[in-house]
């Protein structure tokens, strides 16, 4: 294209694009001041910006002489005399300083102590409480409360039922959440030490996944598997919530429970392990 035609078409396009941008920005203002919605606001802003953007690019490409520039690249390493001169200036200055070894000692100790003082402040952000991290949460005798505040009983649990419960006084507390499931007691394969942990086939497990701490919220009645929706770990409720598939390596902590004389379910102690994801000092 010859330069004159290029100038003509370039100018025409640039003017048209900037007119479109002007129109779009008027639309933006009208939409904003009349409070009529997100959609048009975004669309008009986009048209305005791209209109002006196109104008600038046209100006840069069509309406500016395209001169290819070639500049020499100076070596980054300065010539040796220049480096020597810099070193010499530094040395001259250093020579004027008396008792340099003491000054150096003062400097290093000041910087070191400042760093130590600043780093110490990190302690204010929190010191791990291993007693909370390793808490087994439940205490013997506590009733198992639903989120509505009702105590779970043997009668409230039908075969195949699933219910979320919390310790008395800690309703809604994430780490305490426990799932109750009633299964046919003849299917149970609990370890010897846990034979009396599941009265009438009612099992209680922590609802916090031992893998990454999500809520193990799904139960498959036919396979007796609890499923975590985050990474699809499954736990077999019949065998003390042993991992059955997926990335979780540790079982869900089990809560020993018993039924008192009127059928109210109560905790027989704390969880078998601290609930939630594992860590270095877990007990």
């Amino acid at each position, binding site marked *: 294209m010859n330069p004159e035609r290029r100038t003509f078409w370039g100018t025409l396009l640039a003017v048209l694009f900037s007119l479109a941008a002007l129109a779009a920005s008027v639309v933006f203002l009208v939409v*904003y001041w009349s*409070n009529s919605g*997100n*959609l048009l*606001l*975004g*669309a008009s*802003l*986009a048209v305005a*910006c*791209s209109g002006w*953007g196109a*104008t*600038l*690019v046209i*100006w*840069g*490409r069509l309406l*500016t002489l*395209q001169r*290819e*520039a*070639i*500049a*020499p*690249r100076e070596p*980054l390493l300065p010539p040796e005399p220049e480096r020597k001169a810099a070193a010499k200036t530094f040395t001259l200055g250093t020579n004027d300083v008396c008792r340099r070894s003491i000054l150096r000692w003062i400097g290093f100790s000041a910087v070191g102590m400042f760093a130590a003082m600043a780093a110490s402040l990190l302690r204010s952000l*929190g*010191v*791990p409480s*291993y007693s*909370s*991290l390793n808490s087994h949460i439940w205490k013997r005798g506590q009733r198992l409360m639903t*989120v509505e505040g009702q105590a779970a009983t043997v009668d409230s649990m039908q075969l195949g039922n699933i219910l*979320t419960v919390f310790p008395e006084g800690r309703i*809604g507390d*994430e780490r305490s*959440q426990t799932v109750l499931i009633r299964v046919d007691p003849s299917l149970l394969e609990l370890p010897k030490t846990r034979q009396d942990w599941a009265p009438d086939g009612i099992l209680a497990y922590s609802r916090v996944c031992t*893998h*990454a*701490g*999500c*809520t*193990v*919220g799904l139960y498959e009645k036919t396979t007796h598997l609890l499923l975590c*929706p*985050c*990474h*699809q770990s499954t736990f077999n409720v019949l065998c003390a919530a042993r*991992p059955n598939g*997926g*990335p979780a*390596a*540790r079982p869900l902590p089990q809560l020993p429970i018993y039924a008192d004389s009127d059928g109210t379910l109560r905790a027989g102690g704390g969880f078998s392990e601290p609930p*939630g*994801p*594992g*860590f*270095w000092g877990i*007990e």
Partner: protein
Amino acid sequence: MRSIPAPAASRWFDSRLRLATIVRSALNHVFPDHWSFMLGEIALYAFVILVITGTFLALFFNASADKVVYHGVYRALDGVTMSSAYQSTLQLSFQVRAGLLVRQMHHWAADVFIGAIIAHLARIFFTAAYRRPREVNWLVGLTLLVLALANGFFGYSICADLLSGAGLRVGYAILISVPLIGPWLVYLLFGGIVPNNATIPRLYAFHIFLVPALLSILIAIHLVIIWRQYHTNYPGPSRSDCTIVGSRVWPSYTFKSLGLFLFVFAVVAALGGLVQIDPVWIYGPDNPAATLPGAQPDWYLGWVEGAMRLFPAVNLHIGRWLIPEVFFPGMLLPLVVFALLYCYPFLERLASRDGNSHHVLRLPWQQPFHTALGCAVFAFLLVLLVAGGDDVIAVAGGFSVVALRTLLRILVFAVPSLTGCVVYLLCILRRQRG
């Protein structure tokens, strides 16, 4: 040529700051023209948009875990108890004029920012632009990527919706899994066992102050170094290590770059206005007792999520100490990936025994092994990213998650190996053609 008399304003500044020499050399500075050199610029402009939109959002967001009962214009959540953080997110989305546009633009700009950084990194890698003298800028750039990833996570976590709540718990599990110092790290970053009332204010301070300050400083250093060293050139006529070929800052480069800024702004505005992102009101407030099936992190963390799903259920007992299963895919893998990236220029220099300065780029096919390695790593990360959504894919495709996961465990090694071999052969063929 017509000469323009310097305006009075320039004399005013010049007589106070002695600018003429600096301005002249700046206007004459040469930048090469190539589309792939715009990727870093896109990231820079996305950061500018993030700062502008983020400042607007900060005026309305209330970073607090205090419980309130919602009575706003979004009727579906009327009467629901939620954190102030979530409530203020709803309010700035529905009640503040242009609030939803700005919030969605902010989230989209973050995705553009990280996407552009990754594309820019790939360009640098595959053209070997990290070689001497640009190793320092490679390290600065990688640190920018790490900070951007972290800040993306902090940003969507503070909205305190059900989805980000799940993300926060997974982040907590990964951090506490670190041997020896894990518990210290979670108290430092999250203020204790998640959830607790300190988490949101703390992440908010990181998100709007600490990380952006570091990003700004490092971006400034990144640009100063580029300016000082001049940009690289692709090989071609009159390109050599002693010249820089391109267009001058004034006028053509300035016009094109400002145009690019406006285009990035336009794309982000269009996405923010037209394409819904992170609709927190659909998820509902964070609620420990509720579960959200199909939960996914934002795409740039999907590879870690995928690794967590594929890694076998193996934890390690050292005496009475435990290294939980999430440590290996969740923490060790990202650490290894980034450690290798940080060391790469130095490893490559050792392997090639080439310590010279280079200002002309190498094309991907001129370095078959290097290109094959890079493609294999990308393929590995892509398979992991797919694995991060394996439940969603299984449901959509109607097959079992278990079978899909077994397949993905094979693919995660097979696809990168195959990709590497194919790319290597293609590069060799291309090189033989000359």
